[in-house]
Structures are given as structure tokens and as C-alpha cells.
């Protein structure tokens, strides 16, 4: 793949930056890690691959002192180390950027960078902190706005702040847990450039991702976990995406065009089930997050929504599912004009919703798996016969959902945040598909899923379509959209730039629309 121009080759005999030996971690009923050996050399980007729940995040949490291993040792520069907390790990040069950012939303970038850092000057004014941040940003080539409040930043910018925070503390090993899952392609490219610069100075990166193309592009070596054990470490240049997928899952995976309909598939309905008629949604900053959107969704079809994240996708899915009211225009469900937003009425009608940020709005992380799994059906029999909530029936339903989602759960009473990121996503997706008789609004449904699970998920979406539901599929993966959708609408700055039939469609045209242009060249 693309060879790094400036690369760092450690002299022979150099000790690894980090060496893990025989690491094990057990949770009640789960072997999260067992007998894991891993070496990370100076100058390398080391990818960590594995199915959902394979133990990647746990292993990195051990390396950064969030968890302590039940067995095994961590060796840094040849010395055995024990980290009781992330503070000790960062002092030893190991820093991590988590899947879910840990910045203080109400603070500025400069304040976040200096928070809890022993090099923060004792009595520093705002401008001192900001100029220090400016210097750091320059040094590590990570553009940020030191004075901006974090809550105003895009996801990509927030991630840069997280990385800067870690690098400022002189990390020599940077760990990134699914960093690109939330980035636009352009932001991802920028991130890769920064990572290459970082390792060129003799540092190292551990990179967790489910996107195999990325792994092929960015990594020097890749290690694969399965069921908590490391099963292989390979040089990336001797691999291809197909091979990695097989190693990960242990079986053959075929991604296919799924637009073909079987003989029993429901036809596309004549009348639409869900209509947006001139819908606007006001954004927090005074403008319109959705601007005069007209969309029609028919039963039995998949409508893809293409576009760079942050162009109104969140508001679109909220308005389609009754979470948010339109500030003007009409939302029409099965011929009825819905005057106010009420997610319950939409759900009862048969509209399922896989939200884009499962941890923020799709789940209550601190509550039990059972409580979260029954969120759509807690008020009906069998969970609540005669209005009485029956915890035992709730757990039975939760088990049913978890089994359909192929998530292994040792204890339904434990907080749902203890599940791996991908397993949370699977659970939410199955929960929503159960109620989606009429419509499924799926925002980035494959985010955080491993290749096998993505395949399963997409197949279920197709089955829903064949059963006669209308599906709105919001995605950044053009390939996914092309493989599934009957029609594709392109969203740009809250406007629908165009809706195109997905046969013989011109990918270039989609690309132009995504950038806010039409084929004739005019700018919207």
C-alpha cells in the first residue's frame, strides 16, 4: 500500500517500546483477555484487529492503567511496570484516546489541554494557556483553536484536542480506539498524516479499527485477537483485507450487492409511508440544521442518505422518528400529519430508530442490560402485563434480543456500559428492528461493528425491506449505500441536493452533490 516517505527504522536490537507478556483479564463469566503477548516497536503503527468483544479495548485499558491485569506483565523499555491508574501510564509515556471522548465540554480547548497536567504553570492567565496551546498545536502539527469551547467543536476537532492532550504529556506510545469511526474521510486523512509524523520521530501508535482498508493503509504490522487471545501478528505488507477478515472471524466473508429481491419480497408501495414536506429544523446557532427538506419513503424500499457527517443527518433522523419537531413543514406518517414530536407515537406506529450516538441517546449506560434492552417494549405484555412491570419477563425479553443480536451476556443485571462498543451497537440495532414493522431509520448502523457483524446487520436490513418495511439508511460508506439502496438522497448543509435512482448511477455526481455542487457546476 502507500509507503510512508519518511519512516523510522529502529537499529537492530532495539528494545520494544512496550512489551506485553501473558496478559489475562477475567470478568465474571467472561474471558476478556488470556495469554496475550504483544510487542510494539519504536517507529511503527501497530493495528489491533478483532471481532466485537474480542478484548481489544480491555487490553488497551490494561496497558493504560484503567484496569489491572489478572496475570501477565507489562514491560516498558525493558523494565517491568505496574500502572495503578492512567496517570502513571502517561508518566511512563503511554497515552490513550478513547472511543468516547473525555473532554470537559464547557471548557475551552486550552483549559482542557492543561487540565490535570503537572506542567501547567501554577498561576496562568487565559492568554498564557492559550499561547502554550498554540505552541503545542504547532509542534505536533494538529490545528486547533485554543480559545474555542469544546462543545462548539466538530468531532474531528475534538479528537485532535484529545490527541494533543496526550502528546503534550510526552507520550511515546499513542493508543487510538476506533478513532476514525466518527471522522469524515478528510478528517481521517489528516489524522493519518499526523500519526505518520508522530511515529517518524521514533514513537509508536496502536490503532484499533474495524475498517480493514484503513488498517492496510496506515499500519506497519497488525495483531489479531479472537476470543480474548492473540492469534497472529503479521507484517501488513504481506496481508490483504480479505485475509485479515478471515483471520479475525475464522470464516469466509462475502460482501455482496444486496439490491436483488427474492420472489417473496414485498413490492415497493405506491403510497409513501413517511413523508417530509418542506421540513425545516432550526439549529442551536440560529440557522437551519435542515432546510426545506422534501423526502418520500415507500414501504419495501431502502432510501440511502449520503453526505459528509454533520450536514443535518442527526436532525433528519430525529425528525423522522418523532424525537424532534420540525420548526416548519409537515411530517406525514402513513397519511397522517404529525403535529407534534412524540417519539412514543412514532415507535408505536412501527418506526424503529438506530441513533447515531448510541451511548448518548440510545442507551442509559449506567442501567442494566435488561433495562436497556426492553426500552421499546417495557410498557406492553409480556414485560408489563396489566401495567405491572415484571423484571423477570423483562430479562427474558432481553435474552431473546441478545440472542438474536448474537451477543454473549454473562449477567443481564450488569450495566450496559460493560459491554464492548460493538456489542452495544448490536443490541440497540436488534431492539429497534424488532419494532420496525413499518419503518427503520438507521443512522450509521454499522459503526463500531466488525466485518462479520456488518454483514449480518446489512442482511437483516434487507430482510426488513423484503418484509415490507421502508428503510432510511444514513451512512458515510458509499459502498454500503450503493450495495443496499434503491434510491440515494444526498444531504449537504441541511439541504437535499438531489435524489438519484441507484441504477447505473454516476458516482462522480454523488461526490459533487456531497460537496454542495450539482453537475452543471453551480454551487448551492
Amino acid at each position: 500500500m502507500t509507503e510512508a516517505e519518511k519512516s523510522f527504522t529502529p537499529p537492530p536490537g532495539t528494545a520494544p517500546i512496550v512489551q506485553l507478556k501473558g496478559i489475562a483479564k477475567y470478568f465474571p463469566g467472561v474471558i476478556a483477555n488470556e495469554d496475550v503477548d504483544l510487542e510494539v516497536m519504536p517507529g511503527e503503527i501497530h493495528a489491533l484487529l478483532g471481532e466485537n468483544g474480542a478484548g481489544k479495548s480491555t487490553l488497551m485499558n490494561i496497558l493504560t492503567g484503567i484496569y489491572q491485569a489478572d496475570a501477565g506483565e507489562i514491560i516498558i523499555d525493558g523494565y517491568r511496570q505496574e500502572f495503578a491508574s492512567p496517570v502513571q501510564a502517561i508518566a511512563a509515556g503511554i497515552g490513550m484516546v478513547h472511543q468516547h471522548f473525555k473532554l470537559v465540554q464547557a471548557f475551552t480547548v486550552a483549559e482542557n489541554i492543561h487540565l490535570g497536567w503537572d506542567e501547567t504553570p501554577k498561576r496562568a492567565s487565559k492568554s498564557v494557556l492559550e499561547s502554550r496551546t498554540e505552541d503545542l498545536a504547532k509542534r505536533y502539527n494538529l490545528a486547533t483553536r485554543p480559545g474555542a469551547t469544546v462543545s462548539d467543536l466538530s468531532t474531528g476537532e475534538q479528537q485532535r484536542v484529545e490527541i494533543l492532550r496526550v502528546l503534550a504529556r510526552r507520550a511515546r506510545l499513542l493508543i487510538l480506539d476506533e478513532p476514525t469511526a466518527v471522522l469524515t474521510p478528510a478528517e481521517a486523512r489528516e489524522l493519518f498524516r499526523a500519526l505518520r509524523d508522530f511515529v517518524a520521530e521514533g514513537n509508536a501508535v496502536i490503532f484499533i479499527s474495524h475498517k480493514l482498508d484503513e488498517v492496510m493503509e496506515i499500519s506497519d504490522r497488525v495483531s489479531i485477537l479472537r476470543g480474548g487471545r492473540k492469534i497472529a501478528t503479521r507484517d501488513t505488507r504481506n496481508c490483504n483485507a480479505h485475509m485479515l477478515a478471515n483471520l479475525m472471524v475464522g470464516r469466509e466473508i462475502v460482501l455482496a450487492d444486496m439490491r436483488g429481491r427474492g420472489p417473496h419480497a414485498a413490492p415497493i408501495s405506491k403510497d409513501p409511508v413517511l413523508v417530509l414536506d418542506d421540513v425545516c429544523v432550526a439549529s442551536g446557532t440560529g440557522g437551519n440544521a435542515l432546510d426545506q427538506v422534501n423526502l418520500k419513503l415507500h414501504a419495501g424500499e431502502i432510501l440511502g442518505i449520503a453526505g459528509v457527517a454533520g450536514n443535518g443527518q442527526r436532525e433528519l433522523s430525529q425528525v423522522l422518528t418523532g424525537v424532534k419537531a420540525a420548526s416548519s413543514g409537515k411530517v406525514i406518517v402513513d397519511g397522517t400529519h404529525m403535529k407534534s414530536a412524540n417519539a412514543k407515537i412514532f415507535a408505536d406506529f412501527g418506526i424503529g430508530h438506530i441513533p447515531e450516538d448510541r451511548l448518548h441517546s440510545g442507551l442509559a449506560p449506567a442501567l442494566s442490560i435488561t433495562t436497556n434492552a426492553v426500552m421499546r417494549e417495557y410498557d406492553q405484555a409480556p414485560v408489563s402485563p396489566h401495567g405491572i412491570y415484571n423484571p423477570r419477563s423483562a430479562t427474558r425479553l432481553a435474552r431473546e434480543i441478545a440472542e438474536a443480536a448474537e451477543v454473549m451476556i454473562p449477567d443481564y443485571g450488569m450495566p450496559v456500559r460493560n459491554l464492548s462498543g460493538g456489542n452495544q451497537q448490536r443490541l440497540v440495532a436488534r431492539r429497534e428492528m424488532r419494532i420496525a414493522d413499518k419503518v427503520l431509520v438507521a443512522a450509521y448502523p454499522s459503526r463500531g461493528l466488525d466485518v462479520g457483524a456488518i454483514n449480518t446487520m446489512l442482511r437483516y436490513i434487507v430482510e426488513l425491506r423484503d418484509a415490507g418495511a421502508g428503510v432510511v439508511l444514513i451512512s458515510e460508506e458509499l459502498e454500503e449505500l450503493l450495495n443496499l439502496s434503491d434510491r440515494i438522497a444526498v444531504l449537504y448543509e441541511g439541504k437535499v441536493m438531489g435524489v438519484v435512482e441507484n441504477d447505473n448511477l454516476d458516482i462522480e455526481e454523488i461526490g459533487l452533490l456531497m460537496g454542495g455542487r450539482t453537475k452543471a457546476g453551480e454551487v448551492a
Partner: protein
Amino acid sequence: MFSSFRIQRLPSSHPGIALAARLAAIVIALVVAGVGIALAGMNPFDLGARVITASFGSSFGMEDLGVLVIPLILTGLAVAVGQQVGAWNIGAEGQFYAGAFAASAVGLFVPGEGPLILILMFVAGLVGGAAWILIPTLARAYANVNELITTLLLNFVATLLVYYVATGPWRDRSGMANSATPPLSTSVPEFWGIVHWGFPIAIGLAILVGAALAFSRWGYEVRLVGSNPSAAKYAGIPVRKHLIMVMLLSGAIAGLAGMLEIAGTVHRLQGGISNNFGYLGIMVAVLARGSPIGVIFSGAFMALILNSGIVLQTQGLTTSVVLAITGFILFLTAIGDELSYYRITREKPEGAA
């Protein structure tokens, strides 16, 4: 070959270990308090024996405990209920006074006596408490104003209001005491010695609320709203409605505590009637980790500590020493709670099976 020790923080604590940690905390606190008392020249064993005989040795002692536990359970329940929906009601003290005030108004000025008046007083207590948390509730629900400060500030208003009416307009002009109202026309009947029917009401209410939270659709919705409002909104649950209703319920329960205190125990309204029950309720709720059923036990524990404090005062210990001991026990209990999340493991030496 030495084996080494590791300290680990567990994501959740084992209930048995948590209980053991609490018991250990109490024992340590008692030992330290005993040493302190011994240094002050008194015999801690002697005092301890006296506390135990005074609390459990006679039915009088048990009755004292029984009366004391009622307001503690109720204010603790009020705070715990608020926590369920994600609200910190620091104002149980004020709602207690407001409930006592409203119930006294009925008891003093509505003519007649008997069950009808009692029911009116009961309702007045609930409404008074709810009314006192109304503004903080609406401010939180509609303007996202933090209820921590608003409920706290209203405590001072309520305390002063009751003090004012009890020493001013509603003062008992017949008797010698001029800092209290005349006796109320009606009281809550007693069912065991001096323990009145507030006792079963408090326990019954805690069980009822606990059951409703665990076994009703309403309870499910409240828990979801309290844990993650965005998720509740996503599921179509009326977040604001639940927040308002549950906060008002919290205030009403604290108001009921005030009503039962004046109508069952004190029989008249006077300044300082709450004895800090509202603030103690915060500790009761925290010790119970926000569980309504747990409040029954932590309320009883708190009553025992307070009662021991009263006994110790009669033995010549000053109030501040008693308060210090009480605080110390609670402090150590909190530390014990936190420590129960840690585990020390001994690692086997290299090569051992």
C-alpha cells in the same frame, strides 16, 4: 521468591464486602470514639453499656427510637426519590417546615376535631411540602436551573417563617411559653407507647415507593429519566412531566414528615422543630445509596446514632463531642463504602502453578 501484592479497583462492589466494610467502619469509629472518651477521663465501656441499656433495655428506649425513626425515614425517602429522577433535593428541611406549617394551620384554625381534621392536616402536610419545592422544580424543568441551590436557599426562608409565626402571630398567648403555638386540636393516634401511626406510615410509604419504582411502568420511566434524559426522550418518555411529578412527590414526602412530627410527636408548632431532620435525610439517603427500601434501614441506623447521642449528653458529654462522634461514624462509613470497591490480590511467584 517473594509474592507481590496488587491493589485493584473493581467496577462494582460485592454486596457482602460492602456490608462488611460498613460494619468495620462502625467498629473503627466506635473504637476511636472510645479512645477519645477515655482520654477525656470517662469510661467508654460504662458509657457504651448505658447507651445500650437506654436504647434497648426498656420499652421507653425503644419507643424513643421508634418516634425518632419516623422523620428520618421520610426525609431520607424524600431525598432518595429525588435521586431516582436525577434531582438533588437538598431542601427537605424547608419542605419539612412547610408541611408542618400547613398542617398546623389546619390544626389551629379549622374548627372541629377528629379524623376529618386529621385527614385535612395530612393533605395539608403533603401539599405544603410539594408547594415548597414547586419553584425549584419548575426552574429546573423549564430553565434548567440547578435545584441544588434553589432548594437549599428555600430552607432558610421556611425556617424563619415558622420561627416568625410561632413566636409572633400564632404564639400561644395563654401559657407561659411564648415561642410556640397552642396545642393542636388533633393528633395522630399512638399505636405503641408513644410511637404513633406515623411509624407504619413511614415504613409502608418507603416500601410502596420502592415497589412502584421496581415494578411499574412509571418506575421504569422514572429510572430511565434519572439515568439518561436523552435516552428517555429518545424512547418517547415525557421527561419533563416525570421530573416535575417526582420532585413534587419528594417535597410532599418531606412535608408529610413535618406534619407527622407536629401532629404525632410535638403536638404544637415551634421554631427549630425540625432538628435538622431534612439535612440528616440527605445522609440517610446517601447511606441507602438512593434505595427507598434501604432508607428504612439507614434511617433506623441514623436514629440509633442520634438516640445514643442524646443518651451521651445526659451523661455529661457536650453536644459538640456527640456531633463529632456521629459525624465520624458517617464519615468512616462513606470511606468503607468506597474501599469496598478495592481488592488486594496476592500474585503467585513466577512458575508456581
